């Protein structure tokens, strides 16, 4: 399933396979049973986490988690929301994720355009530099980055909420953009290879500058890929834990996933509250996934098979 060749998605011709399928009924029955069992097993952790989050701690401590409920309520969600300051941390996450995703997609699509459709000199080096950079273990850049961030002051107009890159939203946004551009350049360059060169050539004949070629010819054509990548990137950054934990120190400013680490201290003794907090935090990505499943999946497998 690759956006590179959307037509291919519907490709397997029904006839030949349907014939073999009908002949193999017993085998399919086994497969279906197996898949159903695995699917149930797959959902159990989530279902039990939701169930636990709806029950008072005393009740589950007394009766165990696998018992019929006596009280069900959303109390823990209310408590997690207020005690965990979830709203505040959601806001922090948006402050990081929205600019980071937009900047990533913008720069990556422009670079991919130069590499793929303008075939600038050194494109191979560029592509390798970006792709390999995205694959490095994070830890190899961690030390110098941490020291640099601690020592680089921000100009006054960027100095809210921190006077240095360390502990600032800017710093976290920058590292996300630097890492994710690598991945997106690669995917988008691949995707743009399917855009007919003639379109660009024609717009050059018309006297369009490089910006107009990008803005008016390329961007509209790659919009589906940008949608898919945007969804995926948002989830990546939303789920980030490491960078904020390393590069920030003020608890109030932690994006939501990293804030979990602080919440833990408050929730530790009460696992049901912890479950409610985890579910609240997981909910946005799960909802986005269920609603935009197609984009999500094509983002992940974008070009993973040869178009």
């Amino acid at each position, binding site marked *: 399933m690759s956006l590179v060749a959307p037509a291919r998605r519907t490709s397997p011709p029904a006839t030949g396979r349907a014939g073999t399928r009908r002949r193999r009924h017993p085998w399919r029955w086994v*497969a*279906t049973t197996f898949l159903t069992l695995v699917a149930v097993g797959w959902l159990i952790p989530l279902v039990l986490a939701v169930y636990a989050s709806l029950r008072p701690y005393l009740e589950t401590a007394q009766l165990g988690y696998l018992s019929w409920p006596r009280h069900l309520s959303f109390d823990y969600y209310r408590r997690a929301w207020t005690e965990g300051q979830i709203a505040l941390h959601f806001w922090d996450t948006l402050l990081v994720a929205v600019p980071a995703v937009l900047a990533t997609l913008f720069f990556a699509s422009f670079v991919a355009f130069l590499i793929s459709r303008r075939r600038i000199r050194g494109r191979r080096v560029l592509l390798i530099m970006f792709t*390999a950079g995205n694959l490095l273990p994070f830890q190899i850049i961690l*030390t110098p980055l941490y020291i640099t961030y601690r020592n680089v002051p921000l100009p006054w107009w960027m100095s809210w909420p921190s006077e240095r890159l360390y502990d600032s939203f800017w710093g976290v946004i920058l590292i996300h953009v630097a890492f994710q*551009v690598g991945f997106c350049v690669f995917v988008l360059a691949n995707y743009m290879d399917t855009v007919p060169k003639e379109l660009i050539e024609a717009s050059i004949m018309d006297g369009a500058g490089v910006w107009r070629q990008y803005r008016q010819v390329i961007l509209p054509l790659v919009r589906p890929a940008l949608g898919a990548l945007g969804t995926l990137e948002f989830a990546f950054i939303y789920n980030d834990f490491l960078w904020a934990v390393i590069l920030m120190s003020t608890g109030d400013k932690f994006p939501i996933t990293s804030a979990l680490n602080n919440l833990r201290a408050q929730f530790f003794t009460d696992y049901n509250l912890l479950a409610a907090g985890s579910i609240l935090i997981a909910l946005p990505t799960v909802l986005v996934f269920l609603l935009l499943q197609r984009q999500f999946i094509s983002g*992940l497998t974008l070009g993973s098979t040869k178009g």
Partner: protein
Amino acid sequence: MTLTPTRAPASPAPARARRRRIRRFTRSDIVVVALLLGAPVLLDVLLIWGPTLASIGLSFSSWNGLLNNPPDWVGFRNYQEIFTSYPPFWPALRHNVLWLLFLGLVATPFGLLLAVLLDRQVRFTRFYQTVFYLPVVLSLAIVGFIAQLFYSRDYGIVNSILGNQDNPIDWMGNPRINLWAVLVAVGWRHVGYMMLLYLAGLKAVDPELREAAAIDGANEVQSFFRVVFPTLRPVNVIVLVITVIEALRAFDVVYAINRGRNGLELLSVLVTDNIVGEASLIGYGSAIAVVMLLISVGFIVTYLTQVMREDRG
């Protein structure tokens, strides 16, 4: 998380004269390109490649990270000490290797099995796919938290199911078993990801191949291993690299559970401890990071050769 694409075949190269004309940029074009290409390249060099080189350099130093106290150069001493007299190093490396083996030999094949079954177009494929993929959208930190709900010694769900309240198993606290308990939770997430990649790969396999195999009298199993699986080679390379990189990058889940101590040490945690911790042993932390880099470098090169194979010349 890292991803997967392979290059699509490049379009045929245009005639040289034509290409030269197209390549030409006007002066204002050059300004635009300089800005919009320059910014991401600068970012990549300053925040990714520069620090990588700096880490390699710092791994030969002894430093506390303070600018007014320049590093001492100590040659290979950090490496020597890590290998010989730094107790957590070998356990951490062993845990990373076990992590990789579990993902590679248990979770990945299981993902492949699910993909193969789903590719046979059983009913409700879409539903199964959604269910198996669901954990992948959760962050590893969340997986760590849900795992605690399950594995807690006194009130955990697993012990409730086992009904061993008199002699409960401390799944997270016992250093002999906690790594495995965590790996089950991590595998829960990894399987769906691998399933998705293989499913995409299987969809691209020419159905005629299978039919030909069936006509030649091969059964399902034979046709999979002899015909279909070999054509999945590009996906396998990508899956291998992703699995290795994920195993090396593993951090969030153990950090969320107990900050990576007591049986859950990983190389990534050791790096963090040495850098952010009180001691600030920059040279030490960097040397461990370089070990991680060396482990991953071969796989990164493999990946690049695979995906750039149909290069654009």
